[in-house]
């Protein structure tokens, strides 16, 4: 091999146009050095995944070329990409849940004997696991594994196929902070072996920890490539969004009032009939934001659906002010003053109906929208125009089907729906999942201003940054119980708080723990 800092992949003027003329990548050029972790940073729709799919042979570029190890290559399919030593861990894992780990790892892999393949496969997996610290049981079935373990299986798949370059598409979006740390260790280990990682993300907080160099993409173009340490978060954020935005939220220290929502020993069954929420108690006070932190699938959905009246609890009570609203219908709960923003936006919106129709969906029964048996469509339209202006919904066309809106705008529609009735308590579940920075910022600021108006907010989110940025109190939900609670200190959250909460999300109670039942 020649010199040490050699560029293993060079993107040269890569251009990709999706019909009907959407420019996903516009003359993207940058180089990736061998044996580094190269971060590709950008918002949703910036073209990161498209570019990686081109490198992995899923898409063909309409212009430009990929130079691999100094030679221009054409990568017509993932199979060729694998032969060239490129591996990819997709954001949504490509594993077969009913198969075991080793079966998934060797699927489509030629160098396994036909007779007793398991023996050889197990051995190969163990060797690789040891070498890179990818801890996973070869005989476990994939559906039994946590997201972090599944990701390790995907990395094993790539490493077994002798990947020199590993593409990781938003690898941290489903991980606990603990799993993120482990992933970073694996990447470090791969670096020592001279392997190269391409790390795709939209979270700039991760960038400093792992990236050797950072390339920022915006609207399909390269904004710039910077080495680690040469750009702070503000600069990176500005590069991503194209304008200077204030990252810190105007979070005020407010003293919460009396309890608005009280949950007492709540038990809720999940879809399979097992208890998803197991004896949870807490309260949300006037003008308080309570964050429920936790990795997806630890009872968040069951909890919020029980609060919203969508899933009757099997035990326990839900009190709204002094009123017992346990097992009320969604509509009655809403009329009692609790608004619910579900994580699955399809639950709140009807994609094939218009913006105007969706905006009055939750109030269609009431005046002024209803006149006897008729709908007053003039009022509906007026209301839609008002909401579109208030929540700055784009495009501002009341007759547009909602499915044509972007995620951020859909979320604004949902907030407009639920806030029309001036709720006292707002229960929101992953409100900014999949949204870009500007939409996220808009929603966060909206929550803070609602808090100042005295609304009590229960914020359920898998994104710890979001929880910490907004919450006055944080409860950690783990396997259906509250594992611990933290209050926001006067001085704001410390690194220690953050680490403790992260530990609890992984099931380990922190040392300064305040146990709640």
């Amino acid at each position, binding site marked *: 091999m020649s010199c040490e800092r050699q560029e293993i992949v060079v993107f040269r003027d890569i251009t990709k146009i*999706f*019909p*009907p003329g*959407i420019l*996903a990548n516009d003359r993207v050029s940058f180089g990736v050095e061998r044996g580094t972790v190269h971060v590709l940073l950008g918002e*949703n*729709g*910036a*073209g*990161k*995944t*498209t570019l990686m*799919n081109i490198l992995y042979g*899923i*898409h*063909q570029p309409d212009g430009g070329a990929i130079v691999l190890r100094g030679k221009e290559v*054409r990568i*017509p*399919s993932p199979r060729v990409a694998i032969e060239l030593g490129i591996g990819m861990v997709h954001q949504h894992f490509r594993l077969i849940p009913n198969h075991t780990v080793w079966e998934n790892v060797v699927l489509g892999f030629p160098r396994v004997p036909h007779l007793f393949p398991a023996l050889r496969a197990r051995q190969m997996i163990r060797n690789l696991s040891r070498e890179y610290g990818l801890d996973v049981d070869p005989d476990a079935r994939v559906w039994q594994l946590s997201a972090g373990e599944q990701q390790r299986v995907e990395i094993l798949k790539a490493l077994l196929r002798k990947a020199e370059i590993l593409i990781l598409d938003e690898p941290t979006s489903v991980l606990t902070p603990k799993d993120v740390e482990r992933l970073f260790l694996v990447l470090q280990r791969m670096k020592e072996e001279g392997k190269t990682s391409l790390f795709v993300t939209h979270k700039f907080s991760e960038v400093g920890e792992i990236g050797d160099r950072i390339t920022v993409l915006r609207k399909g173009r390269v904004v710039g490539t910077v080495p680690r340490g040469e750009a702070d978060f503000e600069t990176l954020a500005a590069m991503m969004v194209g304008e200077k935005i204030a990252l810190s939220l105007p979070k005020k220290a407010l003293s919460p009032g009396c309890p608005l929502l009280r949950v007492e020993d709540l038990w809720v069954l999940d879809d399979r009939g097992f208890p998803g929420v197991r004896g949870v108690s807490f309260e949300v006070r006037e003008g308080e934001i309570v964050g429920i932190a936790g990795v997806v699938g630890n009872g968040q959905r069951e909890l919020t659906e029980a609060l*919203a009246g*969508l899933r009757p609890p099997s035990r326990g009570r839900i009190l709204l002010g002094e009123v017992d609203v346990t097992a009320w*219908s*969604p*509509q*009655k709960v*809403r009329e009692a003053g609790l608004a*619910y923003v*579900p994580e*699955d936006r*399809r*639950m*709140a*919106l*009807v*994609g*094939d*109906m218009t913006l105007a*129709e969706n905006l009055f*969906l*939750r109030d*269609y*029964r009431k005046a002024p929208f*209803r006149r006897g*048996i*008729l*709908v007053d*469509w003039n009022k509906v339209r007026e209301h839609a125009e008002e909401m579109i202006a208030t929540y700055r919904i784009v495009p501002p066309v009341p007759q547009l*089907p909602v499915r*044509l809106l972007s995620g951020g705008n859909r979320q604004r529609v949902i907030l407009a729906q639920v806030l029309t009735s001036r709720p006292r308590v707002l229960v929101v579940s992953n409100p900014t999942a999949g949204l870009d920075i500007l939409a996220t910022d808009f929603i966060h600021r909206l929550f803070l201003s609602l808090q100042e108006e005295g609304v009590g907010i229960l914020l359920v989110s898998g994104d710890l940054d979001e929880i910490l940025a907004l919450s006055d109190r944080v409860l950690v939900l783990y396997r259906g119980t509250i594992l611990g609670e933290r209050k926001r200190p006067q001085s704001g959250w410390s690194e220690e708080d953050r680490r403790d909460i992260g530990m609890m999300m992984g099931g380990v109670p922190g040392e300064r723990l305040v146990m709640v039942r």
Partner: protein
Amino acid sequence: MRLRLQVTRRLEPSASMVFFVSALSLLLAFLVSGLLFVFLGISPLEAYRVFWQGAFGSLYALSETVKRMIPLAIIGAGLAVSFQASVWNIGAEGQMLIGAIVGTWVALFSPLPPSLLLPVMFVLGFLGGALWGTFAAWCRNRLAINEIITTLMLNYVAANLVLYLILGPWKGKTVRGFAYTDPFPQEAWLTTIGTTRVPLATFLFAFLTALFCYFLLAKTTFGFELRVVGRGEKAAHLAGIPAKRVVALVLFLSGGLAGIAGVGEVSGIHHMLRHPAHISLGYGFTAIIVAWIARANPLGVLASAFLFGALMSGQDALKVAFGIPFQVMYILNGLVLFFLIASEQLLYYRVTLRVAPWGEKEDEYDRVLD
């Protein structure tokens, strides 16, 4: 370099687009049908001429078309409402027969004064079909049985019920062994328009039904509720819309309208209850297509019902003129449906020819951005 078809998704097809594509697919169906006639040894041009004559060529032909359009339009409007709620009522055939049975009972066996016969026939016929439909709604709401299965199966129950009645207890005393009931008294006949066989009352009712169903869907709170249920059941639940009640009411209405169409056939055309295949000619099934072609718009149903009425009467003329077996008509209908359904893709996707470099992968145009 070579040519490649490129498929891109369209956002919303315009109304003129829908019309243009539908017309084009009908044209293609006729062209391919022409081949069929060539195989049968009939000149395609001659066949087209006979078809045209039979469907529109004379006042009589036009009246035959309208006669068939009426039940299609009445049932189709009800089904349009039901499809808007994503309630897949494919039991209109049976609901229609139940209407015919109830109407026949009133006409032949009820002790009502003659002047009341017709109104009561229609009211009870509506209720009969409506309850037949509501039974499927009950099965879905209470027992979680898919309404497609129940409505379909209830068609056979209704058809066999008709057979039982005309062969057994209701078999006419004056019909010399034929399998139908005695004719209705004159007071239970609908007046026809002039010398045609088109009943005036049901002809007007078809237009009123379409307007009513349109109004229901577009202007009323209930119409809004049922459209939400049809497009997003989860969202409907969260908004507090009683989906079960919507399902029940929709099956009640569409079943009832089919029942009225059934009464219209026995009192306006046949004046007796007879074999199910004679009463209905498959109207209940064809109306599904009628509603579907109209994209579940009750006003559009008027147009598509007319179109299918014309197809039916034109084919009747073909059958008589050339003595071809009636099964051939199924092939013709199949071709029309094939092209109409296939053309759906053209409404939602734009297909263009483009020059592609060698070695390009086939499937990449189906992929979405990020």
